[in-house]
C-alpha cells in the first residue's frame, strides 16, 4: 500500500474511534421536543415551558373500573394510601373525606389576608352591618349552612367571599366517598409525580409504581378491577417506547433486507462486509455531527438511519459492480464524476433542511448530509485500498441484458407514463386547495386509543383544557404576583360582564406581600371594632356580645406574619400555586388559565385582548399557538424545498451546461414527484410537512439515477452492467426508505411513503425517457 493510502486508512481509523467515543457520550431523547422551535418567540417560550416542564406535565390521571362502587372506593383508598407511602408523588388525591380539610383550614385561618373583600369600608359600622346581615341571609339558604359553625368567628363571610371566586365545577363528583366519573362507572385519582415531566425515566417509574401498587391492592381486595393511567407522562413514555422499538426494528429490517440483496448480487461475504463499511462510517459520522451540533440526538434522527443505510450503500454498489468491469482506475475516471455530482445533489437537498427552525428537520438534514458525504468519501478513498484493485463480483451480464431489454420496453411504453402524469396533474389541480393538513397533530406520535382514553379521563376529572391563558412576568416573585393581581382586576371586569366564566390565579392563595399588608392595614383595632359592632348590631339576631371570637381573630390577624409559599405546604393549594407561579432564567411568570362562561362555553378572545390592551400582559391561545407554529413550519418548509430544488437545478445546470440535457435529467424527477403526490392524496393520505420534505428528497436522491442514464450512457444506451448497478442501488434505497413507511411515527412514515415509491419511479421514468434506441449494428 502506498503512503497516501495508508495515511487515509489511518485517518479513517482514528476518526471512527473518536466518533465511537463521542456517540457513546451522546444524549438521546425520544420525546416530542423535536417539534418545538429552535428560536421561539416570547409566547412560544411560555408554551414550550408548559409543554416541557409545566406542572401539568407531572399530573397523572388514574381510573379504576370493574367491581361495584364500594369495591372501587375501597381500592381507591388503599391505592392512595400505598402511593402516598411510596414517596414518588407530591400529591395523591381521590376526593376522600378529610383530604381537603387542610385547604379549608388554610383559607379560613388566613381569611383576613386572603379575602378580596377586605377593605377599610368593610369594617366601618355600615360595612359591618351590611356584611353580617348578608351572612345571616345566607343562613336561610342551603348554600349558607356551611357558614353556621363559623358564624361567630367569621360573621362578615370572608371564607364565603374567597370561595365565590373558585371554580364551582372544579372537582369530579364523589361516589361511595371517593371521586368517580360522571356515570359513576369508575373511581378516579389525580396524582402529581415528584419526577419532572421532562424526565421520561422518572415518569415511566412513577407509572410502573402505580401499576404495581394497584395490583398489590387489588390482590388484597379480591375482585377483578382494571386500572387506567393517562396524562402527559403516559404519552411521553409511550412515545419513547414506540420510537425506541421502531428505531431498532426498522434499522434491523432495513439492514437485513439490504444485506440479503447485496449477498445475492455479490455472492461474497467479504464484499458484503466491505460494502457496509461506508454505510457504518456514514451513520456514525451522522450521529457524531448531530450530537456535536445539537447536544441531543432525537430518536427520529436515529430512526432515519434505516433510510440512510439504503441510500449510502449505493456508492459501494456502484464501485464494486462498475469497477469489476472496468477496473478501479477507469472507474474513478469514468464513473466517479457522476457519482460525485449525485452526492452533491443529495447534499444540496438535505442541506436545505439545515436551515429549518423545526429542530427535527434540521437534525435529519445534518445527519443525512454527514452520512452521505462520509459514505461517499469512504467509498472513494478507503474502499479501493481495502477491497484491492479489482473486486471480484460475479458475472452479472445475463441479468444486465434482461434489465436492458426491460429498459427498452419501458422506453416504448413511455407515453403511458405521460398519460398517468397528466391524470395526476389534473387530480392535483382539482384538489389544490385541500392538499395540506394544517394541524400540528399530524406530527404527534400519540396513539389515537391513548388520546381517547386521556380525553375520557380528563372529562371525568372535570380538568379544564387550558387552551387560553393570560401570562404576566416579574423580576421577582413579589412583582410577578403584583402583576397577576393587576391582570386579575382587569379579568374581574370581564367576569362581572359575563364574558368570562372565571380564571385561576395563584394570588388567590398567595397574595403579594404588598396586598397582604394593605389588607392587614384595613383591619380595625379590636377596641374600635367592638364599639362599631355594638352600634351596627344593635337590633340584629346576632348581637355584638356573641362576636368576641370575631374580635379576637381580627386582633390576631392584625399582627400575624405575612403568608409565603412555605405555609401552603401540606395543602392542595400548594400544587395549584406551583402550577401557576413559575421561576425561570429571566425571572418569574404567573399563568392565569381562563374558564369559559357557562352560557355558551366559548371564550371571546377578542374581548379578552381588548380588556388587556395597552399592557404587558400576554394572552395566549395554546391551541392556536401550536397550530400557528405548525403553519410556520409548513411555510418555511415550502421555501426550503424550493431553495433546495433551486440549488439542485443550479448544480445540474452548471455541470451539464445544456438546457436540453438539464430538461432530460429533471423531467423524470418532476414526473415522479407529481405521481407520488397525486398517488398519496388519491389514497386518502393527508399530506403534511414531512411529505413536502419527502418531495425534495425524491429530487435529491433520485437525481443520481437520472444522471447515470444521462451521462454515462454510450451510443448504444446504458451498458448492462452499469444498469444492473443502478437497479441494485435503487432497490437498496427503496428498501431503506420503504421500511420507514412501516413506521407508526408520523415523521418517519411520511418520509418513507414519499421517498420510497418516488425513488423507484425516478429509476423507471429515467429508463423510459433516457434510454436510447440501440443503434443499428
Amino acid at each position: 500500500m502506498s503512503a497516501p493510502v495508508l495515511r487515509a486508512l489511518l485517518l479513517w481509523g482514528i476518526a471512527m474511534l473518536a466518533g465511537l467515543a463521542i456517540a457513546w457520550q451522546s444524549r438521546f431523547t425520544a420525546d416530542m421536543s423535536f417539534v418545538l422551535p429552535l428560536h421561539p418567540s416570547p409566547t412560544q417560550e411560555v408554551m414550550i415551558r408548559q409543554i416541557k416542564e409545566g406542572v401539568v406535565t407531572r399530573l397523572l390521571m388514574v381510573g379504576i373500573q370493574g367491581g361495584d362502587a364500594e369495591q372501587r372506593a375501597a381500592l381507591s383508598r388503599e391505592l392512595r394510601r400505598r402511593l402516598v407511602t411510596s414517596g414518588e408523588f407530591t400529591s395523591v388525591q381521590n376526593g376522600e373525606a378529610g383530604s381537603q380539610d387542610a385547604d379549608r383550614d388554610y383559607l379560613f385561618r388566613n381569611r383576613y389576608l386572603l379575602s378580596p373583600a377586605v377593605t377599610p369600608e368593610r369594617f366601618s359600622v355600615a360595612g359591618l352591618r351590611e356584611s353580617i346581615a348578608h351572612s345571616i341571609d345566607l343562613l336561610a339558604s342551603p348554600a349558607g349552612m356551611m357558614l353556621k359553625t363559623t358564624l361567630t368567628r367569621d360573621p362578615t363571610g370572608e371564607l364565603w367571599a374567597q370561595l365565590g371566586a373558585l371554580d364551582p365545577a372544579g372537582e369530579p363528583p364523589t361516589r361511595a366517598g371517593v371521586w368517580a366519573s360522571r356515570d359513576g362507572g369508575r373511581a378516579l385519582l389525580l396524582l402529581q409525580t415528584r419526577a419532572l415531566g421532562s424526565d421520561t425515566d422518572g415518569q415511566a417509574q412513577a407509572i410502573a409504581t402505580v401499576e404495581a401498587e394497584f395490583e398489590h391492592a387489588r390482590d388484597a381486595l379480591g375482585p377483578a378491577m382494571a386500572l387506567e393511567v393517562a396524562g402527559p407522562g403516559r404519552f411521553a413514555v409511550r412515545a419513547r417506547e414506540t420510537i425506541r422499538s421502531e428505531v431498532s426494528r426498522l434499522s434491523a429490517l432495513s439492514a437485513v433486507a439490504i444485506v440479503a440483496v447485496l449477498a445475492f448480487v455479490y455472492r461474497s461475504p467479504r464484499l458484503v462486509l466491505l460494502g457496509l463499511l461506508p454505510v457504518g462510517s456514514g451513520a456514525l459520522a451522522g450521529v457524531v455531527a448531530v450530537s456535536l451540533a445539537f447536544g441531543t440526538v432525537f430518536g427520529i434522527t436515529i430512526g432515519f438511519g434505516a433510510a440512510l443505510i439504503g441510500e449510502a450503500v449505493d456508492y459501494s454498489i456502484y464501485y464494486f459492480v462498475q469497477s469489476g468491469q472496468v477496473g478501479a482506475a477507469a472507474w474513478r475516471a469514468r464513473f466517479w464524476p457522476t457519482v460525485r455530482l449525485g452526492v452533491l445533489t443529495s447534499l444540496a437537498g438535505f442541506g436545505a433542511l439545515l436551515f429549518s427552525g423545526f429542530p427535527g428537520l434540521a437534525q435529519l438534514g445534518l445527519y443525512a448530509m454527514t452520512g452521505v458525504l462520509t459514505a461517499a468519501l469512504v467509498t472513494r478513498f478507503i474502499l479501493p485500498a481495502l477491497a484491492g484493485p479489482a473486486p471480484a463480483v460475479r458475472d452479472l451480464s445475463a441479468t444486465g441484458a434482461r434489465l436492458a431489454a426491460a429498459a427498452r420496453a419501458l422506453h416504448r411504453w413511455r407515453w403511458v407514463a405521460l398519460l398517468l402524469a397528466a391524470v395526476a396533474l389534473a387530480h392535483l389541480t382539482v384538489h389544490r386547495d385541500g392538499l395540506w393538513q394544517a394541524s400540528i397533530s399530524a406530527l404527534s406520535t400519540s396513539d389515537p386509543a391513548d388520546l381517547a382514553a386521556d380525553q375520557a379521563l380528563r372529562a371525568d376529572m372535570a380538568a379544564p383544557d387550558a387552551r387560553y391563558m393570560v401570562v404576566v412576568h416579574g423580576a421577582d416573585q413579589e412583582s410577578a404576583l403584583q402583576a397577576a393581581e393587576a391582570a386579575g382586576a382587569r379579568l374581574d371586569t370581564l367576569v362581572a360582564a359575563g364574558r368570562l366564566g372565571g380564571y385561576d390565579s395563584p394570588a388567590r392563595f398567595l397574595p403579594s406581600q404588598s396586598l397582604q399588608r394593605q389588607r392587614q392595614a384595613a383591619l380595625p383595632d379590636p377596641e374600635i371594632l367592638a364599639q362599631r359592632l355594638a352600634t351596627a348590631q344593635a337590633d340584629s339576631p346576632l348581637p355584638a356580645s356573641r362576636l368576641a371570637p370575631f374580635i379576637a381573630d381580627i386582633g390576631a390577624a392584625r399582627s400575624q406574619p405575612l403568608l409565603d409559599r412555605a405555609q401552603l405546604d401540606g395543602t392542595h393549594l400548594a400544587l395549584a400555586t406551583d402550577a401557576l407561579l413559575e421561576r425561570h432564567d429571566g425571572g418569574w411568570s404567573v399563568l392565569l388559565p381562563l374558564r369559559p362562561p357557562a352560557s355558551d362555553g366559548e371564550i371571546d378572545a377578542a374581548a379578552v385582548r381588548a380588556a388587556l390592551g395597552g399592557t404587558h400582559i400576554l394572552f395566549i391561545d395554546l391551541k392556536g399557538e401550536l397550530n400557528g407554529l405548525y403553519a410556520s413550519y409548513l411555510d418555511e418548509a415550502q421555501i426550503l424545498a424550493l431553495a433546495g430544488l433551486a440549488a439542485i437545478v443550479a448544480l445540474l445546470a452548471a455541470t451539464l451546461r445544456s438546457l436540453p440535457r438539464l430538461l432530460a435529467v429533471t423531467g423524470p424527477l418532476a414526473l415522479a414527484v407529481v405521481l407520488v403526490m397525486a398517488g398519496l392524496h388519491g389514497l386518502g393520505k393527508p399530506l403534511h410537512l414531512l411529505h413536502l420534505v419527502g418531495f425534495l428528497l425524491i429530487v435529491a436522491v433520485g437525481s443520481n439515477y437520472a444522471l447515470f442514464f444521462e451521462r454515462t450512457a454510450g451510443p448504444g444506451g446504458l451498458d448492462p452492467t452499469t444498469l444492473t448497478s443502478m437497479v441494485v442501488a435503487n432497490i437498496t434505497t427503496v428498501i431503506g426508505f420503504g421500511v420507514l413507511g412501516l413506521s407508526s411515527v408520523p415523521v418517519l412514515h411520511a418520509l418513507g411513503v414519499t421517498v420510497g415509491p418516488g425513488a423507484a419511479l425516478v429509476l423507471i421514468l429515467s429508463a423510459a425517457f433516457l434510454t436510447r434506441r440501440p443503434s443499428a449494428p
Partner: protein
Amino acid sequence: MKLRDGLLALILYALLGPASAALDLNQLMADLARHPGGRATFTERKYLAVLDKPVVSSGEMRFSPPAHMEKRTLSPHPEVLVLDKDVVTLERDKRRLTLRLDSQPEALAFVDSLRALLAGDRSALERSYALQLVGDTQKWVLHLLPSDQRISALVLRITVSGQGNQVRSIEYLQADGDRIVLDLLPIAGS
C-alpha cells in the same frame, strides 16, 4: 362536607309537599302515594343556637310527583332550589350550583327514604325510620325517628303534621340541636 349535608337536609321539606293524611298508617301512605302534587306558599323558620332570633324566609313550593320539586324563596333573598331526580340545582345571585345526590351516600339514603314516604312505600320507609302516627284524620302527627346511622348523623327527628289530607308543617331537628320549622299553606286550585 357541611354544605352538602345542610343542603340535603333542607331538601327534605321540599319533598314533603302538600299531601293528604289518614289516621291509619297504611291509609296515610296510600293517600300520600295518590297525591298529584301541587303548589303551596311556605314560611320557614330556622332556630339556630348561634342567633337570638330565628332566620325567617318565605316563598313558594311546587311538587310534581314522582321526583321534581322547586322551592322558590322570595324573602329575604331571592333564590331557586330545584331537585330533579338526583340532581340539585341552586340559583342565587346569578350563580348556579349543581350537586348530585349520589355524591353523598348518607344524604342519598336520607332523600331516598323521604321519597319512600311520598311514594307511600311503608316497608322502604321502615328500613330507615321508626314510624309513629298519633292523632286523628283532622289533626295528625307522624314522627320519623331514624334507625339508619347514616341518617341519624344528620337528623335526630322529623315531625310531619297535617290536617285532613294536607301536610301543614314539617319540623326537622338537626343532630347539632338546631331546629327548622317549615309551615305550608296549599294554594287553592293548584
